Each structure stands twice: as structure tokens, then as C-alpha cells.
């Protein structure tokens, strides 16, 4: 029985893990295996574009080809290796608690799927996002076999535009998150660790930025200057960091009184080294939660900007902009506004579910 399961697990990634009750790992493995192979078998005709197409196509094909392979190797090693019982307080224990929550696992799986789909979009999408169909008969077609989610006012395929829009949204959100977590962590860690007058000045500045009506500032900056990818990422990131800084400062204030920091100081390490090597690594847990929440928030704000017509300029499909396109045809073509909004909701929900699950897993004492 055991041997049979192992053989099966080695051949079909994910089966062993699911049978062993490890749903999260099993679903990721089998999902990527089945999903990517399905894409490969239906879309292999587009593969030769690797030779002529740009980097996005090459990355997409690489993901499709190497994804299942990686899943298979991971599963193979997993089946062969023995699993130790996770130590109390270790990362393994946190992962164990995380996967106990079905909602959190569903969120994580959705995020992974979103990222993979974003990567393979050039191969997956049936149409180019700016490709116009028959402008006489093809406009505002309801969902059908060729256009799974229908077409918009320029007879463009909505599904393809949503797929490409997802790439934009995720890229903006990841970029903005990187900026805000980076700046916020350094700012808060310095304020908390150095303390005194430096702390006072740094946190005053944070207060000013937190008092900012964020959406208003975003609208002002984007409307005044030419909206571009870099500008939107920068503005979203730079309005998010004060919250991170405040969180980090609070954590650092408690961390710096702990024994291991005292020990590091007794060893004569420099402040810089203590901060970078001893304090900041211990912030990983709260930062992950903040980052997941921030991702959801950023996607919401970015789509809000797009909805107001302040997102990335026209040929680039953005979810918010697509909802705005559908606003005037709500009565005749509801799908134009409905599906992009659904995409926003699904991605924000999954980031928030993961944030919740992580918070529960990291601190079981918290009630939610």
C-alpha cells in the first residue's frame, strides 16, 4: 500500500501529498502539473513564436515547459525524503497552521494561479489585447465559444484583455509593495532602534504622510503628471510605506529589548550589523502579513485610478479602465463591466485571505 502510493506519487505529482492529507502542497503540485500540461497540449502551436517573439513569450513557454518538470522533481524528492516533525515556533509549524485553514489555502492557490496565468498569458490568450474584431458585427458580442467573456466596444476579446490586464495589475502591485516594504522597513527600523530625537523626527514625518488623504494625493499626482507605469508604481508605493514604517517601529521597539540583541551588542557588533542581521530578519512575519494586505489594497487603488481614467494610458488594458468602459453600456452589454470587476475582486479576496491565514498562523493567540 505504502509502496504503491509512493510509486504513484513519484509518477503523478501531488497524489502522494493529497493522500497524505497535505492538501496545499498536493493541490499546488497536481494543479501546476495538470494545468500547465493542458495548456501545453492545446497551445503548442504558438511555441515556435519563441524564436521570433519577445521575452514575454519566451518566459511564458519556459514556465509551461519547466513548470510541470519542477513540480515533478519536487514531488519526487518529497516522496523519497522523510518528513521530520516541525520544531515548535519554527517556520514549519507556521506553515502547518497556515494550511489548516481551507480559506487561506484557497487564497494561496488562487494567487499562485494568478501569477502563473500572468506569466503564461502571451501563450494562453487567444487574442492580442488590442486586436479589434469585426467592427460592424463583432462589437459588444455576449459571451460565446470564440469569445468566452464577450467583446467590448472595439470588438476586442474581453477574456484576453482581462488576462493582459492582470499582468499590469500584478506588476504594479508587486512593484509598489516592494517600494513600500523596503522604505517602510528601513525607516521604521532606524526610528525604533536609534530612538530619541531621530525617532521623534522620523515618526513626525510618518504622521504627516498618514494624515494624507491617500486617494486624493494619488489622483492629484497622476492627473497632474503624465501617467506611466513607473509613476503609478512609485506613487502607490510611496503612499503605502508610512503604515509599514509605523508597524516596523513598534516591532523593533520590542525586539531591541530582547536578549539576543543584548547578546549581539555585548559581542561588540555595530548598530548597522545588529539592525540588518538580527533585528530586520525577525520582522519577516509581521511584514509578510502587511505585504499581503498591502497587495490587495494596492490592486484596489490601482483599479480605482484606472476607473477614474487615471490609470495607464489607452492601449494598455487595465481592470479599472475596463470597468469604466463598461459603465456606459451597462444596460446593453453588462459583461464589459462585470467580468473585469470580478477579476479585481477575486485577486483582492485571495490576497486578503492569505493575509488572514498568515496572521492566524503566526500568532495563534489572536482571535482573528
Amino acid at each position, binding site marked *: 500500500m505504502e509502496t504503491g502510493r509512493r510509486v504513484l506519487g513519484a509518477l503523478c505529482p501531488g497524489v502522494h501529498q493529497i493522500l497524505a492529507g497535505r492538501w496545499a502542497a498536493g493541490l499546488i503540485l497536481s494543479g501546476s502539473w495538470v494545468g500547465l500540461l493542458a495548456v501545453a497540449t492545446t497551445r503548442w502551436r504558438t511555441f515556435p513564436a519563441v524564436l521570433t517573439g519577445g521575452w514575454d513569450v519566451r518566459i511564458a513557454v519556459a514556465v509551461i515547459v519547466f513548470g510541470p518538470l519542477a513540480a515533478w522533481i519536487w514531488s519526487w524528492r518529497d516522496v523519497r525524503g522523510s518528513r521530520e516533525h516541525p520544531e515548535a515556533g519554527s517556520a514549519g509549524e507556521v506553515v502547518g497552521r497556515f494550511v489548516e485553514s481551507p480559506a487561506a489555502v484557497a487564497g494561496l492557490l488562487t494567487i499562485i494561479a494568478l501569477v502563473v496565468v500572468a506569466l503564461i498569458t502571451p501563450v494562453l490568450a487567444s487574442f492580442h489585447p488590442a486586436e479589434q474584431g469585426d467592427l460592424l458585427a463583432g462589437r459588444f458580442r455576449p459571451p460565446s465559444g470564440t469569445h468566452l467573456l464577450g467583446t467590448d466596444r472595439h470588438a476586442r476579446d474581453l477574456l484576453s484583455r482581462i488576462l493582459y490586464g492582470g499582468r499590469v495589475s500584478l506588476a504594479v502591485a508587486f512593484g509598489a509593495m516592494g517600494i513600500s516594504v523596503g522604505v517602510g522597513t528601513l525607516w521604521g527600523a532606524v526610528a525604533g532602534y536609534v530612538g530619541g530625537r531621530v525617532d521623534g523626527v522620523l515618526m513626525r514625518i510618518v504622521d504627516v504622510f498618514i494624515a494624507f488623504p491617500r486617494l486624493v494625493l494619488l489622483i492629484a499626482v497622476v492627473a497632474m503628471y503624465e501617467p506611466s507605469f513607473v509613476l503609478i508604481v512609485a506613487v502607490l508605493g510611496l503612499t503605502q510605506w508610512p503604515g509599514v514604517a509605523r508597524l516596523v517601529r513598534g516591532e523593533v521597539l520590542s525586539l531591541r529589548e530582547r536578549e539576543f540583541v543584548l547578546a549581539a551588542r555585548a559581542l561588540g557588533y555595530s548598530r548597522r550589523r545588529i539592525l540588518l542581521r538580527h533585528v530586520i530578519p525577525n520582522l519577516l512575519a509581521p511584514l509578510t502579513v502587511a505585504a499581503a494586505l498591502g497587495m490587495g489594497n494596492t490592486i484596489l487603488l490601482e483599479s480605482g485610478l484606472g476607473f477614474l481614467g487615471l490609470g495607464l494610458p489607452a492601449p494598455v488594458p487595465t481592470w479599472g479602465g475596463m470597468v469604466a468602459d463598461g459603465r456606459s453600456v451597462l444596460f446593453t452589454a453588462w459583461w464589459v463591466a*462585470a467580468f473585469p470587476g470580478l477579476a479585481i475582486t477575486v485577486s483582492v479576496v485571495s490576497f486578503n485571505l492569505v493575509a488572514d491565514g498568515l496572521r492566524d498562523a503566526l500568532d495563534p493567540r489572536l482571535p482573528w
Partner: protein
Amino acid sequence: MTRYAITRLLGAIPLVLGVATVVFFVINLAPGDPSLHFVTPGMSGETIAQVRSNFGLDAPLHIRYLKWISSLATGELGYSFSHRRPVLSVIAASLPNTLLLSGLALVVAFGGGILLGTYQALRRTSWTDVGLNVALVTVYSIPAFWLGLMLILVFSVMARGAWDWPVWLPSSGMVSTDHEALSFPGRIGDHVAHLVLPVLTLAAGMMAAVARFMRAGVLEVLDQEHVRAARAKGLSERAVVLGHVMRNALIPVVTLLGLYLPVLFSGAVLVEYVFAWPGMGRVLVESIASRDYPLILAGSILFAVVVVIGNLLADLLYAVVDPRVRHG
């Protein structure tokens, strides 16, 4: 407590000035100029220069900044370029509408959230609880502008056209076009009908957040000794929940009231845009689009003031609901 409130408000002045200063420089350093609004084709270069100097736009940036700050100190907010009337009168016309919308949304969000959260906590770990949890995260994650559109789709477009419901709700504005012709109760009904969808849209996300806080609060209080004591002395479950559990669980939730005020105001920007609601948020979006500098600045200051008042309100409410907290 009054003294505490006054000190806090005075202390917040530099904060508001800081926000205003940043906004001032962000918009003034941007390319473009509001004088373009008054320039018509065929105007000579001289006239354009005259227009610019009339609005004081020809002065160097730091002079303009000092002028603006000093006039702000005297309570002078300036003259709106695009509305062609004083900024104060533009705000006076739109702010009450925003206050009405957000005030009602606040009531709905907290009322609904408190009830939902308590209900959920009393059925903890049941399927109802788990299901509601996921439902609340979903509601919390829906972009307000899209939720608004979908509500319009269902309750005004489809209900009126395709499904032929007896009742459908208006999708934009504050009153119908035939408002004046209606009888008095009819006018009230018209107002209420126009409020339903915007208020629901604005309240939904916040209601979900409040419900989660309330659930956490109730769960924490349920485990405490005094609840066991109340049960032990034979109080009905209803009395225990209402008088002992909810009352204590409300303490942290009430402070959210202040903290969520600015969130509501920001949310109102998009919701007003979707429902064509003539409020402050819409005025602000339009003012930014038309580069109406005085109006943008006044609007941003207003939003910053709302944040300050919200924070103060949170602290004061905390002292009101929790007798252990005292502000000297």
C-alpha cells in the same frame, strides 16, 4: 477633556499645514497651468500674461507659497477658477451632501457590522461562522466602484427593464428630474430612493471590517469571568449578551468610528463619481482634472482635517466608553 481636545486640535495644525504644503508643491511643480481655462483662441500673448498675473501665477513659486500660506492664516481660501466663485461657496454647496452620504453609510456600516459580528461570534466555529467569514472578506475586497455599478445593474437597470420588478431604484443624482412636481411625502420618498444604492455601496466594505472587529471583541469578552458570573447568577442569555458581552465588546469598535471617518471620505470620492452624487469627492476629482489650484488645495486641507478630527474622535470616544481611560 475639553482642554485635552483643544490641545490636540492645536497640535494638529502643523500636521494639516504639512499636508497642505506637500499638496501645494506637488500641484504647482506639475506642468500646466490653470490660466489655460481663461485663454480663448486668438488671445494675444499680452492678454494671456495679464490673465496669469491677475491670478498671481506669474510670481515665483516661493512668493506664491508665502502669499498662499498667509492668506490661509486669515481664513481666505481663494477663488475657484473653474466654478468662478469663491472656494468657500463651492465647498458649502457640496460638503453637506457628502456628510449626508457618509453619515448614513457610517450608521449602516456600524449597525450592520455590530449585529453581524456578534451573531458570528455567538456561533463561532460553526459553518455559519466560517461561511460568514469568507463572505465578509469578499465584501471587504470588492472594489466600491464596481459594487456600485453591479448594484445599479441589478436594482435599476435589470429590475426596471428585463425583470420588470414593481420597485426599482434610481442610479444617479440626489433627486429625480420631476422632483419639484411631487407631493411632500413623495419628495421624501424620492430622496430616500436616491440614497439607498450609494449608501449601501459606501457602507459595504466598512460593515465587513466592523463585523470582524466586533466578532473578535465578542469572542474575547465571552471568555471573561464576569460573563460567567452573569450566567451563574441566572441571567437570561439575551441579558448576558446584550448587557455584559456586547457592551464590553463595543469599546474597541467605537474607536473605529473615528478612524474610519477618513476612510469613508476617501471612499466617497469613487462612490460619488459612480452615482453622480453632487458631493465633495466629485468636486475634488473635477477640480483636479481642471487644475483648479485653490479648490484642490482647499479640498486636500479639508480631507486632512477630517483625518485629524477622526483621530481625535477615536481617542475621545475611547475615554467615553471606557471609564478606565482618562484624558487629563
